[in-house]
């Protein structure tokens, strides 16, 4: 079987299940007696085991198998869900993660799982004297056919028992192929197919992978659960060519100590509900290679869905973009030639394309929960390392964002959370002496706000001391002492985002804040968003990230400078005003205007973009577009305002990647290319 075509699916689903494992284990830590949770953990582990066995990743399968043993003991209440055991399980999940990532990277064998497996085996056997409970010492079933080396583990025994309870018998089917048989694996496949039609195959000897690789002589056997009689089974198999013999013998389970160990409830309810439907696909399904089957019953909720390659969605979005451009073009033709019929038709088309665009955008949306999911684990580990008690509260994880944004937002959030844990939340002792709850609280909140998504990281820790920040900023020469004296506290705290503020480690030790905050800001701004901070001493801080819903199609204001057309993203425009040239004052060689009591620096586009040096110097009336980036504002002087338009952002390509002031390009209705201004870097240039 060519497993490569399932590789992507395997990796993706494994990651999903690992995430589920992490989440459930965390919940279990808070609620150790929650049986449904354990069942879910078991199912996830089992699915990973089944998939990896099918794909031939034995290390993963082996580890999950050992994990299952422990989980089973937990489920039966024979092992308490203590912290030490959970730690081991967490370690297992981490190791599995490493294994899966190693597989994704193309080398499976780099991770050593032996020590962990040993711990698990010891745990399983050490806690429970009955050898029947642990895999390494499996029960040899009495009453098997002579000469058979049939060994059943406890899961299989339970399955058989559960089946027996429903009146279904288990048979061991021994098949002998004709000597000189050429395509043994093909024959095996046919035999398995035949058996599958009669019942559920739960085990083969040798295992399915070995059978597939033809690592056996001429004989192999399979255990099948069926209500057919043995003659029918052997007849069905003998009808396959090149099969010499097929003997079906019923398996009669001995009254093992296992049955006494099991409470009747688990013996009947669990195996039939949980194990039977999955055990089939995972062992017998192997030759057919259907890794998805096992997960089919894993997600009880949620509608039908289709997995689509993100590249396909990207090209779909591109095509819709093209459509929008052409629509705008038609609109212009209709208007300039005064063709009423055409204009009407285009209006209809406009509605359709708008809908289409919304739908495509929605398709690309993913809930932020995808990113948030990994944080509980991170917060838990980090707070343990730092001996702090922290409660992470996540809200609004169903809020959706464009896939491209989701992919990028993880790192900045990790940064903010780490900062909150490391520096924000005080130690339990300090908290107590300050009259606070010793358990700190971090809130991670996402919500919609107009065309934006807001993500907030709040902590109820010590807050940021503006005076300390000012002091450091002065020491580092970022601001002067005079500036520092005038500066308001809210503004001072924002200095943490200034590049150069946070490069040295010392800063984080003194102020307790600001490790790489400018990196956070740069990332967020590159996504077209912004980040701000509010803080109160001894009450905590709040970092607020504002992100656009999507990056691909935006509203923009088109402006004229000389003969060139530029687009300014509407999101960063405050207002447009008319001023007379006399309104412009000069402060320290910087042209400014006064707008509602605020001093706003002026950017002359014609100069900044090297169009002409003295274009509108003698012009009496000037158009100024007031733009903002974060709290900063600037007035951009343009020749003319053309109007607001929806534009599709196109990249300028590698060759022009480093260009400042230009964020990208777009194609106008007439096919001409217009450049999109990068408001952020425009502010840095100024006059």
């Amino acid at each position: 079987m060519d497993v490569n075509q399932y590789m992507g699916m395997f990796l993706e689903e494994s990651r999903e299940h690992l995430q589920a494992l992490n989440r459930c284990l965390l919940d279990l830590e808070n609620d150790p007696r929650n049986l449904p949770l354990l069942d879910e953990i078991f199912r996830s582990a089992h699915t990973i085991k089944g998939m990896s066995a099918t794909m031939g990743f034995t290390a993963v399968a082996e580890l999950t198998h050992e994990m299952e043993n422990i989980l089973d003991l937990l489920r039966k209440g024979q092992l308490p869900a203590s912290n030490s055991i959970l730690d081991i399980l967490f370690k297992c999940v981490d190791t599995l993660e490493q294994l899966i990532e190693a597989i994704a990277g193309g080398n499976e064998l780099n991770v050593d799982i032996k020590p962990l497996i040993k711990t698990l085996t010891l745990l399983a056997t050490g806690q429970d004297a009955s050898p029947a409970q642990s895999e390494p010492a499996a029960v040899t079933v009495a009453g098997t056919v002579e000469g058979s080396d049939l060994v059943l583990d406890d899961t299989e025994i339970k399955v058989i028992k559960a089946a027996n309870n429903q009146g279904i018998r288990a048979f061991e089917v021994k098949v002998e192929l004709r000597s000189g048989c050429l395509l043994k694996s093909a024959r095996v496949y046919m035999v398995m197919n035949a058996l599958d039609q009669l019942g559920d195959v739960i085990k083969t000897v040798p295992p399915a992978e070995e059978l597939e690789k033809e690592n056996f002589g001429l004989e192999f056997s399979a255990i099948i659960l069926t209500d057919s009689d043995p003659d029918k089974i052997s007849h069905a198999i003998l009808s396959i060519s090149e099969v010499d013999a097929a003997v079906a013998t019923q398996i009669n389970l001995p009254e093992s100590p296992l049955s006494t160990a099991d409470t009747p409830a688990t013996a009947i309810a669990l195996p039939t509900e949980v194990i039977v439907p999955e055990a089939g696909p995972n062992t017998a399904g192997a030759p057919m290679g259907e890794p998805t089957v096992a997960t089919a019953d894993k997600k009880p909720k949620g509608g039908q869905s289709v997995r689509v390659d993100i590249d396909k969605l990207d090209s779909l979005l591109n095509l819709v973009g093209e459509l929008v451009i052409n629509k705008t073009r038609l609109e212009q033709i209709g208007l300039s030639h005064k063709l009423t019929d055409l204009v009407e038709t285009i209006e209809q088309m406009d509605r359709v394309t708008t809908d289409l665009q919304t739908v495509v955008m929605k398709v690309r949306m993913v809930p932020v929960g995808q990113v948030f999911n990994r944080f509980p684990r991170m917060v838990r580990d980090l707070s343990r390392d730092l001996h702090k008690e922290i409660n992470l509260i996540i809200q609004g994880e169903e809020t959706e964002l464009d896939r491209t944004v989701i992919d990028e937002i993880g790192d900045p959030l990790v940064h903010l959370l780490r900062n909150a844990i490391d520096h924000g939340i005080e130690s339990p002792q300090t908290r107590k002496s300050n009259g606070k709850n010793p358990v700190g609280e971090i809130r991670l909140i996402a919500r919609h706000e107009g065309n934006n998504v807001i993500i907030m990281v709040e902590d109820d820790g010590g807050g940021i001391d503006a005076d300390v920040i000012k002091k450091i900023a002065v020491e580092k020469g970022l601001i002067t002492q005079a500036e520092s004296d005038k500066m308001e506290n809210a503004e001072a705290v924002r200095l943490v985002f200034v590049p150069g503020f946070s490069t040295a480690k010392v800063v984080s030790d003194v102020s307790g804040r600001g490790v790489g905050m400018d990196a956070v800001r740069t990332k967020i701004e590159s996504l077209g968003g912004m980040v701000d901070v509010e803080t109160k001493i001894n009450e905590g801080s709040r970092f607020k990230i504002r992100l656009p819903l999507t990056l691909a199609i935006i509203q923009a204001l088109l402006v004229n400078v000389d003969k060139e057309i530029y687009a300014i993203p509407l999101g960063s425009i405050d207002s447009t005003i008319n001023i007379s040239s006399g309104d412009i004052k000069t402060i320290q060689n910087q042209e400014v205007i006064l707008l509602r009591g605020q001093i706003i620096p002026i950017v002359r586009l014609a100069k900044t973009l090297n169009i002409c040096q003295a274009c509108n110097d003698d012009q009496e009336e000037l158009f100024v577009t007031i733009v903002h980036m974060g709290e900063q504002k600037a007035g951009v002087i343009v020749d003319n305002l053309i109007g607001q338009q929806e534009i599709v952002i196109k990249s300028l390509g590698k060759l022009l990647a480093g260009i400042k002031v230009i964020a990208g390009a777009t194609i106008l209705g007439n096919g001409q290319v217009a450049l999109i201004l990068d408001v952020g870097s425009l502010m840095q240039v100024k006059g």
Partner: protein
Amino acid sequence: MAENTLMNNELQIVVFKLGREDYGISILQVQEIKRLTDITRVPHAPDYITGVINLRGSVLPVIDLKKRLDLPAGDYMDSTRIVIVKVEDIIVGMIVDAVLEVTTLNTDSIEPPQTVVSGVNAQYLDGVGKLDDRLLILLNLETIIGVATEAVKA
């Protein structure tokens, strides 16, 4: 029949004019040839990048090949064309004075570039091909475009 079958040691070359010289690039690197269209100037770009054009919905940078090769500038003419080339994964347009023909060149008739051929820096050259009594200057697009990338970064 025999004429259509290319031997291993033969190259198909797109021949174009810059000033009075004939230049050539491998046909495998050429995607298409366009008439001159509206070119949008990109501020702060290196001066040999004339601007960007719209090629069926994607935005492509356009290089003024004469400026890039430090050849004397000239006005655009009726025969001026934009040759769209793909080098590795970068697609760019190059402005040339005229596109002449597609011809087959035997690798044996290609000589390594001397330090300076007709004023063009040797690093931009792959060699000089002899075609009957004509000389074809073969350009190395990797350096012409690759160096361009570095220039922007610096």
